[in-house]
């Protein structure tokens, strides 16, 4: 155990990954500061030991204040407008938070003069329309949504600050990662919540877009471990974090519904209105670098993740006096400051 505790600042602490990362950092003995938006409701998943400080990625002065308050050795930028689908509705706001927000944060780090290490949560969406599969750290960026375009800006900005300003700024290029804490607007959670509700007779139908959509889905607690490892290296770099396996929504439906003894074909309705304007083709990550250099490996397989999510949704139904988990497509929500 380190004698002097290290300090970390985590943005986007109220999203899916934030609480997992905070738990990991607290277990490693860090003093953890979570950046929240002014007035933001902090969900119970965020550990009580996390110190809160206010800040907005759209406001440089607030970022400088958050850095001054937390005095971190490590900054984890998880904040973003995370819904790909919603990014088509307001590309300007998405760019301001998800793209420019990272630039503001890096400038604040640079101006602080402190030897701060920064981890940027990049996304597989930066590869969106990639012509090669699987993708690795050298695959050319080809984003196909306003979200992906903003994440690509953030990714290249991190690389620029690493090279031109010598800042220890790393990226974790995260492929889809799920957990019982996934927001209800995401398709995995939408399916597991619906399977739970339908099995209880609360709902009968689930509306989905493209059932042939293919993703590389991993387990969120595994992925925050990779983020932490990326900042413990001698030099900053980019790391694809992925399972290297792809599955279709049909497979996901099979696992989720069969785990509660249902046949999804009887409940799922495809709705063209839920199709994205531009659907990425085949996103599958090659995490060789993370495996070899970070010693990282996923601990949960796809079926286990989905079953865990369905079980958690059933638990929530059991615990709630009234059904709490939304089964209808909720408005895609923001998972972080912005």
């Amino acid at each position, binding site marked *: 155990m380190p004698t002097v505790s290290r300090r970390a600042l985590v943005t986007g602490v109220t999203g899916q990954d934030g609480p997992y990362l905070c738990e990991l950092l607290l277990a490693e003995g860090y003093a953890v500061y979570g950046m929240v938006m002014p007035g933001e409701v902090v969900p119970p998943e965020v550990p009580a030991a996390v110190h809160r400080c206010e800040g907005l990625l759209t406001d440089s002065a607030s970022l400088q204040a958050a850095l001054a308050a937390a005095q971190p050795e490590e900054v984890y930028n998880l904040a973003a407008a995370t819904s790909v689908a919603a990014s088509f509705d307001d590309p*300007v706001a998405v760019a301001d938070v998800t*793209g420019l927000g990272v630039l503001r944060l890096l400038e604040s780090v640079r101006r602080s003069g402190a030897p701060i290490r920064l981890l940027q949560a990049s996304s597989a969406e930066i590869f969106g329309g990639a012509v090669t599969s699987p993708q690795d750290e050298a695959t050319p960026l080809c984003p*196909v949504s306003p979200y992906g375009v903003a994440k*690509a800006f953030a990714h*290249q900005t991190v690389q620029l600050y690493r*090279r031109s300003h010598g800042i220890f700024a790393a990226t974790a290029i995260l492929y889809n990662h799920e957990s019982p804490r996934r927001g209800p607007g995401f398709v995995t959670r939408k399916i597991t919540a619906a399977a739970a509700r339908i099995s209880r007779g609360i709902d009968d139908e689930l509306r989905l877009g493209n059932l042939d959509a293919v993703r590389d889905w991993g387990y969120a607690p595994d992925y925050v471990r990779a983020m932490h490892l990326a900042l413990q290296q001698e030099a900053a770099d980019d790391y694809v974090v992925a399972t290297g396996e792809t599955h279709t929504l049909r497979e996901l439906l099979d696992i989720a519904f069969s785990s509660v003894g249902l046949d999804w074909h009887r409940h799922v309705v495809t709705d063209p209105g839920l199709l994205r*304007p531009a659907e990425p083709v085949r996103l599958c990550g090659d995490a060789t670098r993370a495996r070899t250099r970070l010693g990282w490996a996923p601990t949960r397989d796809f079926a286990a993740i989905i079953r865990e999510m369905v079980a958690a949704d059933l638990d929530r139904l059991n615990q709630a006096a009234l059904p709490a988990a939304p089964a209808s497509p909720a408005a895609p929500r923001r998972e972080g400051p912005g």
Partner: protein
Amino acid sequence: MSKSALITGITGQDGSYLAEHLVSLGYEVHGLIRGQNNPRAAIVRRIVPELHLVDGDLHDQSSLISALEATHPDEVYNLGAISFVALSFKQAINTGEITGLGVTRMLDAIRVVNPATRFYQASSSEMFGKVRETPQTELTPFHPRSPYGVAKVYGHHITVNYRESYGMFAVSGILFNHESPRRGLEFVTRKITDGAARIKLGLETELRLGNIDAQRDWGFAGDYVRAMHLMLQQDEPDDFVVATGETHSVRELLELAFGHLGLRWQDHVVVDERFIRPADVAMLVGDASKARRVLGWQPTVSFSELVAMMVESDLRAVTADLPATSAPAPR
């Protein structure tokens, strides 16, 4: 019926050339101008008297919507940017705001006001940065090396995204360096031609430069604005590299500029580390085959003609600025 166009970055080098070109084609041309009493408005008005100026700022999306509603353009040319690479390192956030996010603000304003408006985005060879292949084409991956380059990559990607996701006629012209007598003095070409003219007239004795081995593909701005217009006249929107396909070093530029005035650059040029960029880009040279084939575009001014044109212009400008009584004799 004559077409109309709205140009952002109207006070820049390309803005005035494009406005002149469109006016010559019978367009009604509007230029977006920002700020109060912008001193460069008078300059561009003098160059293009037919130009209409309209207020607006790439920082402010509602001002863009107002400008579009006021001018009803058939075509929008987004040339507005913080375009100087060295400044982009000092004002990285502002560069992201204007050069990057400004593109989205304009595209989204068009989507709101009239999505049938055709949109041209001025992309840049600086997007290629540390190049993986030479020459660069429309398919070469981007590895930008400056805040300007990163912001331009963003602008390019979001332009393609609006085309593919919203079905808008939005195109990106990947323009390699293009120069002219109207180039700003902060750019190396103009700094050299202006410096050579001043040295010739005895006003200066030395010229301080950064990396004189840097190589670029330099064309004439007047040629490049023709390509911008052609891109918006096609049946289908697409992206095009616009370049000469030739590369020259700053050293060659010095030879031509000083040589044109009968001077030896070696007698005057001092290499100054301060002007070397934090992360200089490697060999940029564009392959404009697609623009030549599809648009029927080609450059008309050679590199040596371009440098001579700029030196002559600077010599006239510097001479005109001299007080009549104290004009030193040319060296």
